[in-house]
Every structure is written in structure tokens, then in C-alpha cells.
């Protein structure tokens, strides 16, 4: 099996860094825009995230996650760290529109779109209430109390739906918690 892009980055393939930016730059940028209040914050965040991606490329295991999922995980971790550091500056003002990229880049977005479509298929297998709380917490960054207020659900129910939803997603992703791929939970 040929090495994945991240494995090539880890193995010092000179072209892999550019390919990685081309393939996942849009994804990381889009995530940063969602979670950073200002344009310059998003730029700084993207830079930090890619440094983390270079550092952690060697840890990527295609048996455990897709590259897009792994990169999203690293991006979320870094963005949440930044958010907590700069919480006082939080502002939901949308950022200005940016220039459109090249056709070659568009092909890469399509690949990411396919990965996103698979993720949406997994989401569709959750109960509607689980899906709702996960979208509010993970995509909109709401706290448990904010979700409870928004959905009129008791706080404990919000927590239960969140846990059940994520545990179900983990099962759908087919990865065991103790180190291997199993096709389901224990």
C-alpha cells in the first residue's frame, strides 16, 4: 500500500508539505474561520495548526482514522486551546469573504467533501436529539447550559445525549478503545 500523504510528510518527502497544504488547507482554514473572531486570529491559528500537523504526521494511523478526521482532530484541539486563551475576545462577527482558489485546489475540496459526506452519513445514524446536541456543542461551541436553554432540555439530558451520540459515533467509526479496529464496540 502506498504511503499516505501524512506518512510522506513524516518521511520528509519535500513535495508532501505543499500537497498537504493544497489538500487540507481549505479544511483547516474553514475550521479556523468558524472558531476565530478575527481574520488575523484565523491566520495565526492556521499556521499553528499546520505546525502541529507536521509534528504529528508520523503518528497518523490510517487504520484508525482518515487523514481528514485526523487533521480535523488536531485542528479542533489547537482551536479549542486558542479559544480558551482568548475567550474574553470572543466575537461572533462573521469574517469577510475571501478569494476563490484554483481549479486544482477545487479537486482537493471535492475529496474533502466526500469525506464530509461520509461523516454526515454517520451523523444521520444518530437519534435526532443526539445529532442536535452534538451539532450545538461541537459545531457551534455551545456550553451544556446554553444547549439546555436553546433546546429546553434538562442539563442532565443534554449531557446524556452528547455522550450517547459520541459513543455511538465511535462505534460507527469501528474503532476499539484499547488500541485496535474491531468493527464495533466491546
Amino acid at each position, binding site marked *: 500500500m502506498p504511503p499516505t500523504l501524512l506518512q510522506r*510528510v*513524516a*518521511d*520528509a518527502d*519535500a513535495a*508532501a*508539505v505543499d500537497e498537504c*497544504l493544497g489538500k487540507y*488547507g*481549505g*479544511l483547516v*482554514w*474553514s475550521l479556523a474561520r*468558524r472558531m476565530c473572531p478575527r481574520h488575523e486570529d484565523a*491566520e495565526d491559528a*492556521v*499556521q499553528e495548526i*499546520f*505546525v502541529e500537523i507536521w*509534528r504529528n504526521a*508520523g*503518528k497518523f494511523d490510517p487504520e484508525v*482514522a482518515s487523514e481528514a*478526521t*485526523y487533521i*480535523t*482532530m488536531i485542528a*479542533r484541539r489547537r482551536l*479549542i486551546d486558542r479559544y*480558551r486563551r482568548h475567550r474574553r475576545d470572543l466575537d461572533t462577527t462573521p469574517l469577510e469573504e*475571501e*478569494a476563490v*482558489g484554483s481549479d486544482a*485546489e*477545487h479537486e482537493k*475540496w471535492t475529496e474533502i467533501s466526500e*469525506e*464530509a459526506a461520509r*461523516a*454526515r452519513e*454517520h*451523523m444521520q445514524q444518530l437519534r435526532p436529539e443526539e445529532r442536535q446536541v452534538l*451539532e450545538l*456543542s*461541537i*459545531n457551534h461551541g455551545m456550553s*451544556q447550559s446554553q444547549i439546555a436553554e436553546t433546546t429546553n432540555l434538562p442539563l442532565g439530558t443534554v*449531557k446524556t445525549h*452528547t*455522550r450517547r451520540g*459520541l*459513543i455511538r*459515533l*465511535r462505534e460507527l*467509526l469501528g*474503532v*476499539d*478503545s*484499547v488500541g485496535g479496529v474491531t468493527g464495533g464496540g*466491546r
Partner: protein
Amino acid sequence: MSDPWKSTERRLLELLADRAAFGLERHEEQEFRELLQMVPGFDTECMERAAATVQLACTSVEPMPAAVRARVRRSAPQPANQRRS
């Protein structure tokens, strides 16, 4: 009779889910660390991956502006300097 290993794993998964979605309180972090010692090799990233799946499903991908890409590329260390340690 309940299986203590399974109940420990279940609680770890709950704490990991809470951490991935909302973050943990200090006492929960402490509980998490204690439980983790009971289950060596537990995949502590499994819920982060599940959360990443949610994020991926919800994210509309747009192109990274060329200026941002150039900045990131300029600041990227040479791949040879980033081998896994």
C-alpha cells in the same frame, strides 16, 4: 453481576465524551487520570475522533486564501527537520 472492567471503560468513555464536547472540570480530570491508570493502552483520542467526525460533517469547506497559504508555507520548517522523535 457487572463487569468492573466494562464499567471502568464505560466511565472513561463518558469522561472522554464530556471532554471532547465541553471540557472537563478539575475533579473530573482527576477521576479521568485515575481511571486511565486502571486501563493501560486505552485509546484516549477515540472521542476526539468522533467529535472531529461531527465537525467534518458540519463544516462547509472553502478555499484557503493564497496569502494565508503563502504565509503558512513560508513558516513551515523543512520536512527533514520534522521527523518523528
